[in-house]
């Protein structure tokens, strides 16, 4: 690829981006590396291979590069699926640089030797300071719009609620986990009663802020025969006699339908 600076840069960038995306633990850094690797470089190299020395105006070259990259991802997934290892971080991190290097090699061979180093540089207009400032403000406002959309807001008219759930803690089913989740608007107090079989009963005082969850583990002693009925009942502090939520389970569970 001697003399083809753009192709050499594309290959180097592809390998570097693949290494960063595959090995670096920080999501934002991986994103910065993965975006050009997935959405630009494969298409750029394929378009370069297809067009060889022929001129293609910059906007069209960029758009075709992105479009062909999308096509490469679609077809690349299909190809990777054929192999036993399938679609993994490593397989993508190998396939995409391979596509870029292979296509860039093809492009270097197809380009006219006389055109080496003689590729026309596209003049990109330089905006003035005022224009740059306006665009920067626009970007900031757009970013603020996206941040506002990402932020959950207080919704006083949304009807709050609490949920109660119960599941065996593991496959042995000798204990249950009983959880209380508050999706109320305010700090809420409850009384939780858990009855195991006919004899044992446990009571818990539960206090939750909105969005909090409290989980309790309750042992279920093994029975010689039959199943143990476990019932968890939740009462709200203000209405101690009124059953607010109730869940139940028979352990050990059956493996057949009724």
């Amino acid at each position, binding site marked *: 690829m001697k003399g083809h600076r753009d192709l050499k840069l594309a290959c180097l960038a592809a390998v570097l981006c693949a290494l960063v995306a595959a090995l670096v633990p920080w999501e934002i850094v991986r994103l910065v590396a993965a975006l050009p690797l997935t959405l630009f470089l494969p298409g750029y190299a394929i378009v370069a291979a297809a067009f060889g020395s022929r001129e293609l105006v910059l906007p069209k070259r960029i758009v075709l590069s992105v479009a062909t990259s*999308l096509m490469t991802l679609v077809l690349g997934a299909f190809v990777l699926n054929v192999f036993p290892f399938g679609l993994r971080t490593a397989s993508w991190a190998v396939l995409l640089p391979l596509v870029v290097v292979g296509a860039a090699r093809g492009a270097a061979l197809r380009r006219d030797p006389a055109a080496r180093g003689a590729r026309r540089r596209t003049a990109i207009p330089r905006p003035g300071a005022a224009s*740059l400032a306006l665009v920067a403000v626009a970007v900031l406002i757009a970013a603020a*719009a996206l941040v506002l959309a990402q*932020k*959950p807001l207080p919704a006083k008219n949304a009807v709050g609620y609490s*949920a109660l759930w119960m*599941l065996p803690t593991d496959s042995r089913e000798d204990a249950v986990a009983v959880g209380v989740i508050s*999706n109320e608007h*305010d700090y809420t107090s409850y009384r939780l009663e858990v009855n195991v079989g006919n004899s044992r009963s446990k009571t818990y005082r539960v206090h939750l802020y909105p969005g909090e969850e409290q989980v309790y583990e309750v042992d279920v002693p093994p029975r010689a025969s039959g199943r143990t009925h476990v019932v968890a009942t939740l009462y709200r502090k203000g209405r101690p006699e009124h059953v607010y939520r109730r869940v139940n389970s028979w352990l050990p569970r059956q493996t057949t339908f009724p």
Partner: protein
Amino acid sequence: MVQARLESLPVIALLAAIGLFLCSLANALARATLAPTELIYWLGLLIIALPIFFRLSSTKPSYRERFALVLLLGLALYGVKLVHDSIFFTFSDEFVHAFNAHNIAQYHHLYHFNPAIPTTPYYPGLEGATSSLMMLTGMSSYGAGIFVVGAARLTFMAALFFLFARLSGSARGAGLGVAIYAGTSNFLFWGVQFSYESLSLPLLVVVLMAFAEREEAPPAYRSAWAVPIVLGILAITITHHLSSYALAAIFVALAVLYRVMKVERPNPWPFALLSVGAALGWLLIAARSTTGYLFPVLEEAIKAIAKTASGESAPRTLFHQASTTAEVVASTPLAARAVALLAVAALAALIFLGLRVLRRRDERREPLVILLCVGALAFFAALTLRFAPAAWETGNRAGGYFFLGVAFVGIYGAAEFLRRGPNLLRRRVLLTGALGIVLVGGAISGWPWDIQLARPLQATADGNEVDSESLAVAEWARERLDGSRFAAPEATARTLLAPGGQVAFGGQGPDIEDIVDEPQLESWQLPLLEQHNLPYVVADRRLISEDTLRGMYFTVKDQYGSALREPGVVHKFSRIPAGRIWEGGHISVFNLEDRP
């Protein structure tokens, strides 16, 4: 001088950002259940679009500025979708495709079963592409998906601009054509949801653009342009069924037209052969279930047309909600209906003018131009499908393809309208207004009025995040149950798919809808659940629970989500008896294998 500055690209970009912020603000107020006036949202949309439309109608911008303007339009309007529902995918098809992407990332292979739309795993183009970003970045399907769909949207805008510029020979016309296309009913929301057509339609336009460029290019360039065409045909084939059939139909029609019209350039029959062969081959080898998914819909549509035409059944009321199970929702206001109808009238006027101009132009001898003109007329024919109850969705979906023709012919209508004269500025203002009406009218007819603005899926209370009941069940299932099998009302079934990651059946195939909606336990219901191995059943008192567009949000007092089904929909499972393992007020989860 002042006008030139106001029309400069940085100022227009700033206005677009302000418009986007207004849209975000309106959605934020709606999520905060403050019932804001929708005028803020529509104003935001117009502040984004009108300055761009006005500038595109001018003779002054360069080719590159017009190109930048259409990209800005695409990006800003894509932003409107993003600010509608950030954090999670919330459109009904998005849950389905997010589940597929999640499965690819989890199991490292394609084609995993999807209970909601079993055909979708066999068209894995979008999810396969998204999985690359998911794996290389560690992002969720939401994070990766918005980048892939965003790239597709920008590619779409640019390719459409190049296509129109090549066919019309005018960059000004091309910019206006793209502006007209933004008025198609699926443009604002449906066309940028995380769903296969959001990738396949942009790729289809890229293929058409490459074909148009190839036709004009010197012979030495033709093989170069064939590369994106061939790659595009193959990628579309494994991305979306309807798009691959549409592309095959376009190439077959072009091959026939080239032959009939004795066009001197090479006949595109190899592309026709490839696209037909690829679509058929994929259908027969990999995606056989498509016939069972697609053809009954088309059959129903044809029957509905026949019944409506013969007077056997009453025509559908326009702007009417299709769902019979949803609670009563706010109907589209009269003024909004008027804008939507005005948009159709404006389009009809543009097409009438455009076709008249095209009759006198050399372009009329171009086979692709002829196809686009046919598409423009077919769009208006497809509008009549909106009157047939079971056919309106088919018409709406087909409209996205036919609208390519509307936008192209509209270029000539707009050019005729803008022809130089003493009142050019007034004509530009009028055209900008008409394009604004087309954009807003398209948005109104493409998405239900009551959910144009967001609803709360998550909220904050005391500084912490609280989830809606559907979302809370899904999050709980994701943390506590490992890919379990559920029967649920459709809205909760969708959230159980993604972000819940569970295999959740809903709807009518199998008939889960009746099992979870009827207050009595019928004799066939438990055997059906056993037959499909669905031990977990979600019972939901809310009438809105079958509504995949509205059923996953918080109930909001005096606004929505408070109408209830009979208590029997929950009690019938308690009476089996079966273990009730979750109770959240409206939603209960039962485990049928948990019993005495």
